[in-house]
Each structure stands twice: as structure tokens, then as C-alpha cells.
């Protein structure tokens, strides 16, 4: 919530460097992905998928999360190093 608030404030009012904005964006992305995909995992596991199903769901969501984070970091990397 705090990082999201800073992100929204910077988008509208702040005048930070592009690098700071991008770093905060990556942090927010990581936190949001973890929170969101953990929530999706909770919803799926509430349907009693069994032991093997739990492992499968966890691994799939972990892969999706890591891939999404790397995609986002790749997009913001020029701003992080060049801002």
C-alpha cells in the first residue's frame, strides 16, 4: 500500500529522476506480483486440489511470477541505468 501510494504520488506530483521512478516501479511490481499470485494460489488451493496439485499450482504460479517480473524489469532497465 505504501509503495503503491508513493508510485501514484510520483506519477502525478513528484519530480524524481526516471531512475528512481523505475526502481520504485520494479519494487512495486515485485510486491504486487507476489501478493497477487499468492492470492490466486490461495483461491485455487481452497478447491482441495490434493498434494500433487498443490505442488503443480505453486510451481506454475512461481514461474509466471518470475517471468512477469523479469519482463517488467527488462522493460524498465533502460530507465534504471540511464535515468
Amino acid at each position, binding site marked *: 500500500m505504501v509503495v503503491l501510494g508513493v508510485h501514484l504520488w510520483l506519477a502525478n506530483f513528484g519530480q524524481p529522476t526516471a531512475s528512481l521512478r523505475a526502481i520504485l516501479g520494479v519494487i512495486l511490481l515485485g510486491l504486487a506480483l507476489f501478493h497477487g499470485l499468492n492470492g490466486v494460489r490461495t*483461491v485455487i488451493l481452497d478447491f482441495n486440489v490434493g498434494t500433487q496439485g498443490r505442488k503443480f499450482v505453486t510451481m506454475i504460479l512461481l514461474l509466471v511470477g518470475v517471468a512477469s517480473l523479469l519482463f*517488467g524489469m527488462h522493460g524498465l532497465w533502460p530507465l534504471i541505468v540511464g535515468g
Partner: protein
Amino acid sequence: MTRRISQILGRGGELNPRNMRLGIWAWLIQRISGLALVVFVVAHVVAISQANFALSGPLFTMLDGLRNPFWSVDRTVLAIDLIMLGIIAFHGMNGIRIVLFDMGVGVGLRSHKVIFWILVAIGVVVGGLVIFYGLPLIGGT
């Protein structure tokens, strides 16, 4: 599933709207809004990245279309973003209510409902401020 859907949604079931009170509505909307936000976050990251990657195609044309609803005349109104702001405000404030409850603050039923509506009010005020200050900047006028 160990219980049939008809037991959950039927007479006496906890997800039958006739039996649902404020707390279970908050739980249900928290879950649905959370799933919607996961989709939104992924779409948001892809949309923000498309300029950097010079992406094109029907998906990105659709994402641009979501930013130009048919009723806008002069200004570009981010309709989906505004709806998502409301969803984020509810999901966040309800999450804070849950954290407070887990910490033992406002455990009694009456104070629990008071806290819920106070946090909804805070979410509405903060969301309104974000829209009030952010919308002219989005419109680009």
C-alpha cells in the same frame, strides 16, 4: 470439491445471497477484486512496456481502445483505469481492515462494522483525490 455447489449456493448455504451479511460480502468482493487486479496488473505492465518494446498488433490496439471510450469527445478518459482505481481502493482498504482484525483491533461485531465503513470512506476520499488531481494530467489539457 468436498461439498456440492448446490449446498454452498442453496438454501442455508453461506454463499446464498439471502444468507449473506456484510462480512461474507466483503470476503467475496475481496476475492473477486483480487483476481481482477491480477489481470489488470499484467495488462498494465504490458501496456506500459509497449512503448519501450515498440510492440504492435491487435492486443495493443485493444489496449489503446480501452483508453478511448466512445463517449469521450475531447479528452482521453482512462475508463478502465478509473474503474480499477475504485477496485484497488476497496481491495486495499478491506485488506487493512483484515490486518487490523488479525492484530486484535476492533474485534467486536459493532466496532468491526464501524471500522469497515470508516475504511471505505477513507478509500472513497483518497480515490476521489487521486481522480481530482490526476484526471487533468491524464487528459493532457
